[in-house]
C-alpha cells in the first residue's frame, strides 16, 4: 500500500505540511477559517514536524502492518482495514484513554486536548494525494509503496 514517507535530508522544517493537514481536515476547507476559527473548536493537524538542530522531519501515522496502537486500543476505535491496509480510526468510539499514544513507537498518535480524544493521519480520505505531500515545497514527503 502507498504510505507517506518523510525524507529528513530535504525536510526544511517549514511546517507547511501541518497547515495543509489542518486545512484538509477542516469543515470550511479554507486555510484562514480553519486556523482562525476551527482550531478553537478542536481542529488539529494529524501530523507534526519535529526540529532538532539542523534536522527536521514531519511525522504522522505510518499505518504499520502490525500496529501496536490497534492492539492497545481498549474501545475498538482503532482498527486495521484489511482491504486497504490502512490503520483506521473511529473518533466516536475513542474514549481518550491514551493507550495508543503509549503504544505507538513513532509518537505519531497525538492528543486532541479540546475533544479529549486522539488524532491521527487518515491518509486524507477522499483525496487523490494526501494534503501534506501535495503541499510540501521540497519533496520531503512522498506518497508511495515501498
Amino acid at each position, binding site marked *: 500500500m502507498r504510505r507517506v514517507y518523510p525524507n529528513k535530508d*530535504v525536510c526544511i522544517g517549514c*511546517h507547511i505540511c501541518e497547515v495543509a493537514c489542518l486545512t484538509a481536515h477542516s469543515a470550511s476547507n479554507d*486555510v*484562514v477559517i480553519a486556523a482562525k476559527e476551527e482550531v478553537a473548536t478542536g481542529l488539529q493537524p494529524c501530523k507534526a514536524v519535529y526540529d532538532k538542530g539542523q534536522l*527536521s522531519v514531519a511525522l504522522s501515522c505510518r499505518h504499520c502492518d502490525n500496529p501496536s496502537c490497534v492492539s492497545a486500543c481498549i474501545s475498538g476505535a482503532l482498527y486495521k482495514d484489511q482491504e486497504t491496509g490502512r490503520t483506521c480510526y473511529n473518533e466516536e468510539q475513542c474514549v481518550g484513554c491514551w493507550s495508543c499514544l503509549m503504544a505507538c513507537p513513532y509518537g505519531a498518535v497525538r492528543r486532541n486536548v479540546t475533544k479529549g480524544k486522539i488524532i491521527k493521519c487518515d491518509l486524507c480520505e477522499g483525496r487523490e494525494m494526501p494534503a501534506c505531500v501535495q503541499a510540501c515545497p521540497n519533496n520531503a514527503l512522498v506518497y508511495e509503496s515501498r
Partner: protein
Amino acid sequence: MLFKPISQNFSDFVIDRENDRCINCEVCVRQCSYEAHYWDDARQCVSHDHTKCVGCHRCEAFCPTGCLTIKKNPADFRDNALWTPTYMKHVYKQGDTGGILLSGMGSPADKPIYWDNLQLDASQVTNPSIDPLREPMELTTYLGSKPDKVSFEETSDGPKLTTKIGPQLKLNYPLMFSAMSFGSINLNLHKAMAMAATELGIAYNTGEGGLHPDLYKYGNNTIVQVASGRFGVHKDYLNAGSAVEIKIGQGAKPGIGGHLPGEKIDEEVSKTRMCPVGSDAISPAPHHDIYSIEDLLQLIYAIKESTEYKVPVSVKIAAVHNAPAIASGIVRAGADIVVIDGFRGGTGAAPTMIRDNVGIPMELALAAVDNRLRDEGIRNHASLVVAGGIRCSADAIKAIALGADAIYIGTAALVSVGCTLCGRCYTGKCPWGIATNEARLKKRQNPEVAAKRLANLVRAWGHEIQEMLGGMGLNSIESLRGNRDKLRGLGLNETELDILGVKHAGR
C-alpha cells in the same frame, strides 16, 4: 527603530502583512534567515521588522495564506537626479562601517542591454521557414580547436578523415552552466548542476572550488576550473573533467580576485578546496605565475601535458577594453576555448564599485573579439563562449549570431531554482538555500528537484532556439554562428552598429 544605527532605518523594503489573513503559523518566521519575521511575545502574534528585510520574497512565496507582500519602501527622499537614494545609502553604510561596499549577483545598474536593441530575421516567401517539430533541427555543438583544413583518403568503406582533430567538448545544446564554485553555492546545487548537465548532454563548470569526491562520476559533463587561488587543483581533478578552464577574470569583478568568507568553509568545502575550515579562502587578483601571454602559454601546456592532450583547455577573461587583443593572445597561446564574461555576469560577492563600474558589455566584446579572430585568420583555432547576463533563449541565439559558439548561463540557472536576485549572496544566509552552506538552509535545495528545474530550463530554451532557427530557415545552429546578417539593430548609433557588425533595421 530603537537600538539601531539611524542609517539602517532607511529600509529598502517594507513587509505588508494582511492581518485578517495571517494565521500566525510562523512559516515566515522559520523561512526568513535574516530574522525579519519574528514571534512577538508581548503581543502573542507574528510580527516583523522592515529594516531586516533584504527583499528575497521567500516569505511571500511560502506564506500559506498569501497574506504577505514585500514592497519597495515608498518613503521618498527629496528628488535629486544626482543623489539618488542608492548613492545616499552607500554613503550612510560607509559612514557606519568604514568598509568597502559589497554586493552579490550581477550589476543592476541601468546601462545599455544591447540584446534589447537587436532583432532577429525570419523567412518570408523566398526562403521557406522550417518547422522543428517536423524536421531535424541540429543544436549539437562541439567546443575546441578546429583544423585550418581537412583532408580525406579513399578507403573501401568510403572516405576517411586523415586530419587529426584536437579534443572537443560535445554539447547537445549550445548552453552550459557557468562557473559557480562549491563554497559560494552549496553541494546540493553542484550535484543538481552535475545531474542536469549529464541528463542533457551539456557541461557544467566547477568554478574555482575544486570538485567534491561525490561528483567525479559526472566527469564527462564537467569543466574543471583552475583559478588564481588554485583551490582544489590536483592531477586527478584536472583529469576528472571533459575540459579544463583557466579563469583569468570574471565579468562581475574584472581585475579582482575572489574571497570566500571563512563562515562558508565547512568540513566538506575545506576538504574539496584543500584549505582549513573556517579560514577565508582568498584568490589573488592575478595568477602569480602569469604575467604575460607567454606565461599563460606555459600554464595551458602544463595542463595539456597533465591531461595528455585529451581535453580542450579553455581560458576565461572578463570583457574589458582590450578584450580583442587579449583574446588573440589567448588563442595564440594554445587555448582551445576562449570565454568572455560580460559586465553583467553574476558573482557571490564583489566590491559594489567594481561590479557597477568596471568592464564592458559582453555584446560589444563578443562582436569585437569574433571580428578580431576572423581578421587574424585564427577564429577556427578556438571556440568562443560567452557569459554574463543571458536572460532568455533570444539573448542566447543573438549571441550565437554575433559569433559565439556556446553560452554559459549562471544567473538564469540560479533563478530557475528560486533565486530572486536579492543580491545578498555574500552573507552566506541565502534564504533560498543557494548561496549558503548552513546545514539548515542548504537543505532548501533538494538536488533532485533542482536538477529537474535546471534541465527543464535548458530544454525549454532548446525548443525556443529551434523555433527561432526554423523561423529563419536554418536547420542547424552552425548555420547561425557569426551570421550577423540575421540581426538588425534598433535605435543604435553608427559606432555601436559598426562594432556589432550589424545593419540598422530597415537596411
